[in-house]
């Protein structure tokens, strides 16, 4: 692996401070390299191995001249606001359903060029928990910074389109997304990924969200496509009092996804809900790693992950609930259920509770198994073929999580994408 950092660095010279951060961060990355299974939190996803096996000559993506995206990839019959990213770079946005005065949107590129703006976000370049984050700090040159003012509720969902085109081929793309929701504001947002022609690339993204008092952020990750892509997403959330963070992950498409969600419940009565489904076949490898940190009293968190594994696929859910000694009256819940439909597939589940307060209600559970024979017999005794019966059971199993989606229009959208996918899968 030979990432040509100097070349990249020279063509991206800018604020001195940023230049230094890039150099320092890339050094950190070079010392550690891509994470391997020897590292904590990477036991089930040996990234170094995956990259070596799948990329002969991975190169740094250094912006593209192409600013034209394929309009056909926009979701139809679904009223929504848009942010469009092409190969990680900000292209355009439209908020036609909203009061645009309440919304400040800037490209990360413009912020990285302005000393004052950069100062406001530079603390986020310190996080060096793993080498992918360091790599991201070194190589990010674009993304989005979105600020929603106090007391503003979106009328329609916001879709963040993450498009990729052939210039991304064999490249590693690094970007960052910042979202800040003011007091009592509401946003429902979809991270939507599309790529034409099955291009192979690696996308390394860091999201930082701030959810202020009484605000609600609903976030949906739709990964139903991008079959040949490799993705690492690290999401960090700061939740203030009475705020709500809801995250649903539809994890169906890419070859590799490692999603990390670190949610920090910092003040009274904030809550975090992480639900998701994985339906994997071929040699897909998906991991969800969550870290829900209860740092204050009376906060609530809940996680429900259901997975179905076929062929040689590999799924992992590492869910951790951490309860600080201050965080009395915490309510924490997590459940993982997986169906393994092929003996060559595997599912790893590692639920973790780390509790330092004494007055808490926390529970976790995890089951992994096959489709129940009695259920198959029941359906077949009503005339369904074995395939139909299997499919119906798998669909039902996963549908239970889709049913938890609280935004009705998004639920319809996700259901239809899920149905499209499951009809292609050979269960």
């Amino acid at each position: 692996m030979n990432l040509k950092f100097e070349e990249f660095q020279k063509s991206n010279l800018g604020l001195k401070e940023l230049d230094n951060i890039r150099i320092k961060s890339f050094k950190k990355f070079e010392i550690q390299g891509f994470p391997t299974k020897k590292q904590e939190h990477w036991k089930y996803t040996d990234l170094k191995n995956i990259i070596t096996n799948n990329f002969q000559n991975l190169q740094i993506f250094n912006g593209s001249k192409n600013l034209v995206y394929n309009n056909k990839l926009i979701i139809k019959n679904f009223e929504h606001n848009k942010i469009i990213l092409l190969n990680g770079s900000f292209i355009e946005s439209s908020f036609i359903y909203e009061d645009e005065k309440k919304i400040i949107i800037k490209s990360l590129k413009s912020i990285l060029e302005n000393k004052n703006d950069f100062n406001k976000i530079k603390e986020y370049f310190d996080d060096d928990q793993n080498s992918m984050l360091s790599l991201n700090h070194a190589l990010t040159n674009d993304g989005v910074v979105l600020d929603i003012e106090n007391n503003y509720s979106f009328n329609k969902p916001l879709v963040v389109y993450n498009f990729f085109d052939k210039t991304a081929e064999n490249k590693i793309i690094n970007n960052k997304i910042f979202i800040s929701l003011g007091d009592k504001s509401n946003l429902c947002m979809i991270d939507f990924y599309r790529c034409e022609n099955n291009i192979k690339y690696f996308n390394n993204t860091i999201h930082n969200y701030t959810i202020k008092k009484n605000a609600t952020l609903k976030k949906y990750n739709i990964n139903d496509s991008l079959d040949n892509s490799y993705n690492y997403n690290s999401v960090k959330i700061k939740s203030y009092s009475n705020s709500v963070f809801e995250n649903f992950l539809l994890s169906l498409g890419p070859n590799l996804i490692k999603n990390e969600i670190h949610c920090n419940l910092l003040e009274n009565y904030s809550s975090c809900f992480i639900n998701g489904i994985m339906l994997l076949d071929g040699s897909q490898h998906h991991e969800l790693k969550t870290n829900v940190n209860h740092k204050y009293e009376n906060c609530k968190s809940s996680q429900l992950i259901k997975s179905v594994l076929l062929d040689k696929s590999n799924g992992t859910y590492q869910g951790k609930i951490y309860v600080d000694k201050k965080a009395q009256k915490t309510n924490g819940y997590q459940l993982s259920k997986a169906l393994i439909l092929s003996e060559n597939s595997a599912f790893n589940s590692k639920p973790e509770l780390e509790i330092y307060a004494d007055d808490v209600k926390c529970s976790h559970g995890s089951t992994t198994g096959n489709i129940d024979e009695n259920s198959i017999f029941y359906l077949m005794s009503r005339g369904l073929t074995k395939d139909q019966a299997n499919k119906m059971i798998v669909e039902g199993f996963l549908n239970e999580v889709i049913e938890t989606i609280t935004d009705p229009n998004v639920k319809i959208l996700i259901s239809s994408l899920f149905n499209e996918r499951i009809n292609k899968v050979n269960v």
Partner: protein
Amino acid sequence: MLDIKNLNASIEGKKILKNFNLNIKPGEVHAIMGPNGSGKSTLANVLSGRKGYEIEGTVYYEGKNLLEIPIEERAQKGIFLAFQYPIEIPGVNTNNFLKTSLNTIRKFRGLKELDSLDFLKLVKEKSKKLKIEEKILSRQLNVGFSGGEKKKNEILQMSILEPKLVILDETDSGLDIDALRIVSEGVNSLRDKNRSFLIITHYQRLLNYIKPDFVHVLVNGKIVKTGFSDLAQELEKDGYEGVSIAK
């Protein structure tokens, strides 16, 4: 319609049905009564094609070797088993399931598949006739249903799928009198000269509502006595032991 000869069935080396014989003609209603563990559910399972049994003997259904017909085809050819313990299947909508089932069966019979509208009309009509609340059909299949609701759901499925041979496995067990009435009205309304019933029960009670043509007593995997419907009353009085000794 159904001709069972010298049927032996074992599971995990344990013999359950022993030289079992039964012949059911079109339009006939047969009741099988027997104590717990006598092999009633095993018989129902073998007839509907459940895997896991070692089977000897012959079973002919409409002149064909039933034992060679795959499970789903038995259903498509008109065999319906109302389960003693209907299975809960989370996330599967009861209406969707039933529509898929009906349409596979209709397709097999060369009938036009029903679209959602026609299907819902049919369901409405049937559930109204059977006095079964339609509500249960929008819920997940049997999930969280009470015992009675599960059994009513089986009966509703039966009346929608219009099978030729109906096997009821202790559908009456655990039902209150109202539910029992619904079940038996469902059965009685389907009775006709071409449709046959095999009613498995533990108690004589159901047979007050559904009058069988024949009653068989199954003890320890064998039919020990066959008679007409008055045999059921006799059993109620004397118990199964009385019958086996009398034999």
